[in-house]
């Protein structure tokens, strides 16, 4: 799922991001590729019933040793 430098530049422009040259965009490319691969790995995974990771639930794990 590649993403073009033009798209990344448009995102920076439209969302007021940090300016980056073409050469700089190539330097971040491996990190972007990892991000896109991680997103792609979630294709088809139904997360609709999963609660936010930030919310506590009472039945998390066993009780503490304290």
């Amino acid at each position, binding site marked *: 799922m590649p*993403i073009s430098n033009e798209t*990344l530049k448009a*995102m*920076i422009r439209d*969302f007021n*991001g*940090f300016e*980056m040259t073409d050469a*700089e965009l190539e*330097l*971040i*490319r*491996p*990190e*972007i*590729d*990892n*991000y896109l*691969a*991680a*997103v792609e*790995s*979630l294709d088809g*995974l139904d*997360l609709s019933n*999963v*609660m*936010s*990771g*930030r*919310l506590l639930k009472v*039945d*998390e*794990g*066993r009780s*503490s*040793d*304290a």
Partner: protein
Amino acid sequence: MPSADLLKLTISELAPKIQSGQVSPVELTEAALAQAHRLQPTLNSFITILDEQAMSQAHQMEDALAKGDYRGPLHGIPIGIKDNIATAGIRTTVGSQVLADNVPGEDAHVVALCKAAGAVILGKENLEEFAAGVTSNNPHFGAVHNPWDLDHVPGGSSGGGGANVAAGVTFASLGTDLGGSVRLPGTFCGVVGLKQTYGRVSQRGLLVTSFNGDHIGPMTRSVMDSALVLQTLAGYDPLDPSTVPVPVPDYTAGLGVRLAGLTMGVPSDYYFDLVDPQVESAIRMAISALQELGVQTIDVSLPSMEFAGALRIAGMADSVVTHEPYLESHRDKYGPDTLYRTLAGQFVLGKDYSKSMKVQRMIKEEYAQVLQQVDFLVTPTAPVAAPRIDAKYIELGGEKHRVRGPGSGMISRNTSPMNSTGLPAITVPCGFNDQGLPIGVQFIGRPFNEATLFRVAGGYEAISPSRGRRPQISEG
């Protein structure tokens, strides 16, 4: 006792000698400072060595002893503090040029606790720039060197602390762990590294990192010492909403208790998928050793770890937000690895951030279920032993993986998931590869049950092939 011998002891060995007056905090601190200065040109483990402050504290602790005011096992013990943890009146750079002149007005909560317990702060320790990597090749303050082989990294981001503890400079060092930054220096330097449960130790005064799973934790020469330091650090801090008001048990109580009757889970997914054969062999031997101690074994499945790669998405976005003010004013002062890894975070979409949080929840619940069946999990701490300082890639699974900067993350693949789950994890030395570089085994426990981890880690430590081994440092 000669100072060279003093510096080989552990905190638990020193504490009774200090309490009885056999060893004085002043002579101990003098010896540690001399060792720090002697090895600094070789290891580059400090950003700031605090000669005057350390000696002043040592004298105070000696005076306190004379008055019968013994503060406990850290009394008069020289320790190191990673340079992203605030120290009042002492420059705290976070390993950056951006904050090269940053002098906090207050101590971090953990520093205040250590001082109150009588610890002597020897210095501020070198780290990866902004604590954002696993090598401690700092572009501004120079690379930290691994005491076991100076051509190799000590791990990161708390590399100065790992190197100092291994080299007999500090008796404990406080590091920070956002993806393995205490546990990786632990395994690469052959020392014990603890990331306790999220919420167990206050983060107040920890500077400029992500708010998604950061922890302050100790590196020590023994499991007992790790327990002693956590005993000092643990507890609710009303000024840090991430801490949880769970009572703090006696962490040393279970040390020495037989391990028979405990059950360990060996994950059949993820953790052993990409691992160097020598590392895997050492971990399998550790598992066998635990079985011989009477620990039952269950193979456990963690299928949601297939999606563990998504956990990093939230951290990417967090990082660019954390750095935003510095990027706007001091972008030119960043090293390229941190700069470009951080800037990538501006492209993370909100829906992907939310999915990352949900994956985190899904994985957290899976671990909670597995930890109903077993008392702890055992995994390799890192998939490889310490890479060379000049290595750009490691090879695993027939592919090259970046060691640092944009696209890196392979080295922390076994440690970073516990930053997302918040579960406690400890690394203990479990042998060496054929180059003589240390290997560590990671034990993962139930939330707020560090006591069981210490019991297991201590039981294993007593029979580990690493026991009693120290690095022979070739000074330059």
